[in-house]
């Protein structure tokens, strides 16, 4: 149990540290924003943003010149003097190779030091500040004149309704983790039955036994929560290394707010006590042992009502196009959030209930013993394993919605244009194009005389068919790497980014954020699937160990191990089938309603859904198979002696 809470604590602390981590990155970004000076200010720092490329590395280069009492760029000890180069930590690590030599030659400078982390967005950033060499003439009109650095970050005030929505989303994301913690608690409650029975035998009342169990859970949870801190510190570097929507962070930035961390450490033991008492409400602890009260009726049909209300609310919201599209309409957002929560819980509850109803119907008529055992078990206690399986299926639903949304946006952006004729006519790897003509202000030096350059022509058509008033130069070369670098040398002070045509970013990849967020969402989903798999394994082991006497009896009366194993697979397969059916159907319904509401063209992520369904089925069955060794232990007939 302590291990379960350690994992839970580590995950919760990780989740709580994401926002501070992203906020710290934002703070760094805003810290280096300059406050613009008047056009002819006498005390200002002139900055020319001239991106550089070496090989396939893109470097943010800021060329500076002090005028009067100029402000010092953030993270630097002073304003770089002519030829002095200060680089980010990442670039410093690459400096000893050809990168450093090329940049020193190209910028007519020398490495002076590194930029303090406080002024570098993240550990992956390649950036440099260089003092403008005296022999380089750059027009002041192209420079940003800055009188100070550091801007206040623009934030949206979080009102109560937004907070409410945030909590719903966070809870939904953390649901598998909570489920894991709850299952770990339940396991602990079930496996200490011997001690609890002994307390009853010694004269303890049922409520005293529950109190002891609660204190035991709380103590174990507190120990686990403390263990979770070093576990979190171990996880942090991996989390910082692009795991959050492909964003790189300094590990130290991933620090949860102290109030949240302390609250988590205090709340988890309290939660454990509460869960322990809750899960024991159906346990009858007698001096002879512990018996779980079976449930004959299952009022799960109520979840159908919850599901119906959720769908009705969402459908109504979808009909309110205008209000929904106004992002500020909090009432609609609350309604949408509530309806999604209703649908989520309704889906899990309904799928669980349906599995129970089917099991109940078929338990009497199935021919094989294993099917009868599986169905009867599902009928007697439909919730423990089914809810975990249902939760996993629900995740598929939600992921389906998110993926569908991202895919729709991606496809829409992708349909902006087809590759331009000039792009298609060039063989990748042998030609060079300049892109991002928006920063062409300085006269572009003639590169046609650079050895290896075959031709230069100008066009208003971008490489992917997008037309602009700005021009792009298409430079045809012999394709040698040295030619590319020579062209870049020639264009060093022009501000033109020069890339091989096959390395140009597509227009919609400029919005590569969508793709990376979608991939990040998929990564988070897979991570949560793993957490859910761990939960399922704990639940299965819990289930097996709690029923060891019953399983031993089956063994004594001659039920073969294979029959018991098949019955357990049947017990899992039925809720899995209903949950996946409901999950996918729910995903499609919610997707249709939500994207119809925002008038977004819907793209059903069929492939992703199929992959996820297969992954879920595989995970559930593999995890069930992993519980077989415990089954072997639990069904030994000699356990009857101990029970």
């Amino acid at each position, binding site marked *: 149990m302590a291990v379960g809470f350690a994992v839970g604590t580590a995950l919760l602390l990780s989740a709580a540290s994401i926002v501070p981590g992203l906020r710290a990155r934002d703070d760094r970004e805003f810290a280096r924003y300059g406050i613009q000076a008047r056009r002819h200010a006498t005390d200002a720092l002139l900055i020319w943003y001239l991106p550089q490329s070496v090989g396939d590395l893109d470097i943010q280069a800021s060329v500076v010149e002090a005028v009067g009492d100029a402000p010092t760029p953030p993270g630097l000890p002073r304003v770089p003097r002519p030829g002095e180069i200060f680089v980010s930590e990442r670039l410093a690590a690459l400096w000893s190779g050809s990168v450093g030599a090329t940049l020193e030659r190209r910028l007519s400078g020398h490495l002076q030091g590194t930029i303090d982390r406080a002024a570098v967005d993240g550990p992956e950033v390649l950036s440099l500040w260089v003092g403008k060499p005296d022999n380089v003439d750059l027009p002041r009109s192209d420079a940003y004149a800055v009188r100070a650095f550091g801007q206040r970050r623009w934030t949206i005030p979080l009102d109560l309704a937004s907070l409410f929505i945030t909590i719903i989303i966070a809870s939904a994301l953390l649901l598998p983790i909570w489920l894991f913690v709850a299952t770990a608690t339940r396991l602990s409650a079930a496996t200490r039955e011997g001690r609890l029975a002994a307390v009853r035998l010694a004269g303890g009342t049922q409520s005293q036994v529950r109190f002891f169990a609660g204190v035991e859970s709380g103590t174990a949870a507190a120990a686990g929560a403390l263990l979770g801190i070093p576990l979190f510190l171990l996880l942090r570097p991996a989390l910082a290394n692009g795991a959050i929507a492909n964003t790189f962070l300094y590990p130290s930035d991933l620090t949860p707010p102290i109030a949240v961390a302390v609250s988590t450490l205090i709340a988890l033991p309290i939660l454990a006590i509460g869960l322990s008492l809750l899960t024991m409400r159906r346990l009858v602890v007698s001096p002879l042992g512990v018996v779980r009260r079976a449930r004959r009726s299952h009022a799960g049909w109520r979840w159908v009502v919850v599901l119906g209300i959720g769908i009705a609310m969402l459908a109504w919201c979808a009909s309110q196009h205008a209000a929904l599209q106004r992002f500020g309409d909090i009432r609609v957002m609350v309604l949408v959030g509530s309806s999604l929560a209703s649908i989520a819980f309704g889906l899990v509850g309904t799928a669980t209930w349906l599995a129970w109803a089917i099991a109940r119907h078929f338990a009497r008529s199935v021919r094989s*013993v294993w099917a009868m055992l599986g169905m009867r078990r599902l009928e007697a206690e439909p919730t423990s394993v089914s809810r975990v399986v249902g939760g996993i299926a629900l995740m598929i639903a939600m992921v389906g919605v998110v993926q569908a949304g991202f895919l729709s946006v991606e496809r829409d952006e992708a349909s902006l244009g087809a590759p331009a004729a000039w792009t298609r006519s060039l063989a990748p790897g042998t030609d060079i194009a300049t892109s991002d003509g928006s920063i062409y202000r300085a006269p572009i030096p003639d590169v046609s005389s650079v050895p290896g350059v075959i031709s230069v022509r100008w066009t208003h058509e971008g490489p992917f068919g997008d037309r602009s008033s700005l021009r792009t130069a298409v430079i045809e070369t012999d394709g040698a790497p040295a030619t590319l670098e020579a062209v870049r040398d020639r264009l060093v002070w022009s501000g033109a980014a020069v890339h091989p045509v096959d390395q140009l970013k597509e227009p919609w990849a400029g919005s590569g954020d969508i793709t990376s967020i979608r991939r990040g969402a998929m990564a988070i989903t897979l991570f949560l699937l793993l957490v859910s798999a761990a939960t399922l394994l704990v639940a299965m082991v819990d289930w097996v160990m709690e029923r060891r006497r019953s399983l031993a009896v089956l063994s004594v009366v*001659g039920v073969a191990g294979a029959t018991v194993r098949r019955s357990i697979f049947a017990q899992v397969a039925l809720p899995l089938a209903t949950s996946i059916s409901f999950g996918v159907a729910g995903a499609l319904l919610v997707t249709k309603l939500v994207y119809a509401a925002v008038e977004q063209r819907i793209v059903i992520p069929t492939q992703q859904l199929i992959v996820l369904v297969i992954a879920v089925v595989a995970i559930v069955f593999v995890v069930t198979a992993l519980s077989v060794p415990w089954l072997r232990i639990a069904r030994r007939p000699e356990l009857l002696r101990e029970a």
Partner: protein
Amino acid sequence: MTLERETDVPAFAATSVGPLIESVDVRKRFGSTVALDGLSLEIAGGEIVAVLGPSGSGKSTLLLCLAGILLPDGGDVRYRGRSLASVPDAVRTRLRRDDFGFVFQFGQLVPELTALDNVSLPLRLAGLRRRDAIDRARAFLGSLGVDDVAESRAGEMSGGQAQRVAVARALVSRPRVIFADEPTGSLDSTNGELVMELLVSTARRQGSSVVLVTHEPQVAAYADREIVVRDGRLAHAAALV
């Protein structure tokens, strides 16, 4: 309606005219505790044997060894002339399914199954068709006076009802041997007598042997013969009939 036994278990076909079950110098330890210390015993077909003794004397361990649930550390247990230790676990499992029936003090019903399911389970495991197994189980429950709880689960029955259902499950497949460990231990005297009457009369009618572990002399009185176990050894044996 007859119960068709599986024919793939030739290991325990009768090999000679001798005792049905025989323990020879059986020894069993649990850690440093000696449970059985060289106990020898023979049980004939159709015989009802009561095993008496104080708590911790080794009675239940003897029953579990005789049923092949525990394997002895020394000595041997033979069923129909064949050593139980010499056959694989799968064969012992089939033996428990086809030839043995069990009644324990409490908790032997599978909790998620109804009484009808519990009683029909051995029949279905033995290959009887579902409908036939259900009919026969229902009839058996009726003969033991508990047909009214046929659709109930263990948690929904009284102790006496649950024990009668357990007796029904032990006897329904006409086993050659019934192992009963304190079958009336959790019942009041009225229910205890009722259960014993049903158990013994049905066993006699079917020709089943019964190994009856108890510490109650009035329960032991139902047996043909009683043996007393003390400190893992046979302390006394006497015919009661």
